[in-house]
């Protein structure tokens, strides 16, 4: 029953000659190039581009979990735009993103300016500062949830003992503006390392001569910061801010763990509202429409990034 080489030949399978030709074909630069990129391309088409198309179709249909819907045009969008909850979420998203990104930028530059100074335990300090960015956000947010507990909040406990707050202190996650402040605080806590470390890399690359020249000219430290450091950091800061804007805008973990969008929807963002409507509520059509509102922001950032990269 053994299959010999002659059987293979008779069956028309490629002999050495064909193999060599196949090899030659494969060795061409463009064939090899397309070949290597094919698995990645296939993945991105099937699991990113196609689902994106599906999201658009869902948003134009009354698609519910378990029942394929029919095309209903822009009905979902009309209902969403008319809903008070959605308008609240739009407002929340902008407040959340703008305040968080501004805080992260300012504090990130400040922290980077400190980190670049000569010090002992440099590696350990940098490691400690970067830690919030590495540990799973959902888990570290659990610690924050406990720290903002309505009764046992360590934040309130400390503030009351220090005389900053009067007892019993705010119910952080149960009052609208406090809840927003808490969510922003955790986002800043987790995103700050990314800003600081990236800006630090930018700082390291500034040649010392610039500072020496400014010092010779008698520029004060503040003037040096404004006229040497900031302009040279601009490209780095632009990239970090654009990046962070997308991912702050699209945040889910922190809000979901801390407040689930509450109290009274005052901390809902696009992603958490889409989750609530699409999965908890089962209305996949409307959920998809809500999450697609992230797309214009994404498109704007991609546009700026690409323009910026072309300038490089």
């Amino acid at each position: 029953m053994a299959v010999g080489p002659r059987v293979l030949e008779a069956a028309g399978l490629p002999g050495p000659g064909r193999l060599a030709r196949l090899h030659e074909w494969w060795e061409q630069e463009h064939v090899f190039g397309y070949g290597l990129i094919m698995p990645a391309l296939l993945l991105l088409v099937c699991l990113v581009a196609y689902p994106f198309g599906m999201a658009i179709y869902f948003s134009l249909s009354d698609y519910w979990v378990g029942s394929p819907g029919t095309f209903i045009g822009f009905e979902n969008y009309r209902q969403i735009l008319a809903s008070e909850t959605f308008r609240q979420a739009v407002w929340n998203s902008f407040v959340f993103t703008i305040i968080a990104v501004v805080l992260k930028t300012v504090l990130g530059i400040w922290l980077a300016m400190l980190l670049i100074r000569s010090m002992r335990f440099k590696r350990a300090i940098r490691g400690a500062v970067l830690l919030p960015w590495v540990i799973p956000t959902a888990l570290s947010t659990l610690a924050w949830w406990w720290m903002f507990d309505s009764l046992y909040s360590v934040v309130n406990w400390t503030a009351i003992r220090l005389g900053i707050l009067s007892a019993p202190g705010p119910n952080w996650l149960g009052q609208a503006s406090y809840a927003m402040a808490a969510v922003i605080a955790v986002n800043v806590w987790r995103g700050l390392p990314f800003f600081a470390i990236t800006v630090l890399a930018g700082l390291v690359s500034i040649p010392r001569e610039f500072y020496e020249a400014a010092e010779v000219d008698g520029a004060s430290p503040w003037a040096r910061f404004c006229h040497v450091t900031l302009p040279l950091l601009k490209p780095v800061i632009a990239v970090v801010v654009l990046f962070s804007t997308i991912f702050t805008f699209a945040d889910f973990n922190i809000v979901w763990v801390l407040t689930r969008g509450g109290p009274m929807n005052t901390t809902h963002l696009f992603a958490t509202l889409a989750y609530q409507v699409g999965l908890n509520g089962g209305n996949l059509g409307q959920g998809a429409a809500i999450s697609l509102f992230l797309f214009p922001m994404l498109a704007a950032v991609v546009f700026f990034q690409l323009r910026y990269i072309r300038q490089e």
Partner: protein
Amino acid sequence: MASAAGRNQRLRSGLYTYSGLAPFVFFALFPFYFMLVTSFKSNAELYNLKAIPFWIQSGLTGDHYSLLFFKTDFFVWMKNSLIISVVATGVSLLISILAGYSLARLRFAGVASFGTAVFITYLVPPTLLFLPLSQVVVWLGISDTIWSLIVTYPTFLVPFSTWLLMGYFRTIPKEVEECALVDGASRMQTLWRIVLPMAVPGIVCAALFGFTLTWNEFIYALTFVSQTASKTAVVGVTADLIRGDIYYWGSLMAGAVLASVPIAVVYVVFLDYYVSGLTAGAVKG
């Protein structure tokens, strides 16, 4: 005199640095410290408003950990997370090495647009596509299994790793490859034997970030899996330890500590890779 003034100045500058950094370091580390303290604190002390919350006064307890070990599927969640992270990262790395090399080195029609496409998908936040993907997973018949995550995680890992590796491949001198090709090596051999060994730091970096991103991933793991036995550590701890209105704060914190340990260990060992990877400007934040 001059040296005394110099020393004084250095002392002042040091004081400025450390006192400036102290609040940041405290802010960064306190939640983790508090997590750890809470996980070992007895319930009696935990819910005593008169007790000082910062440390443990009335003895350590292991109760929260034993609840986690014997009353939940914690070890199953950890095993799931490990399998998903290793397999998804490994597969994505393989795909990304091929794609990254192709985009960085080879010339063919459309290579620039492929690069742009990878960059754009790299910027797509997972929260944009989780609803349609949850249906894709159902159609593939893998919803509620760890396969739903192994299959979908490459959607954010591949663009990220490809982008990171492209940068690394570009820093390798082209002459080395050309020599190998002239010597009769095939293109695949050149990539595998010549280029890859030189790109090891980049590959380690991509693997570390891949492992971290998958271990930490939340929304897909929360959406695609609902049965306890298929959950990841992060979702298991976050979602399964809250039953109704009863919060097991001690066990929640114990779970958060233990589920962070693998990442923390990898992080401490490879700290420099994390810093350099982050500064490659190629990471989601």
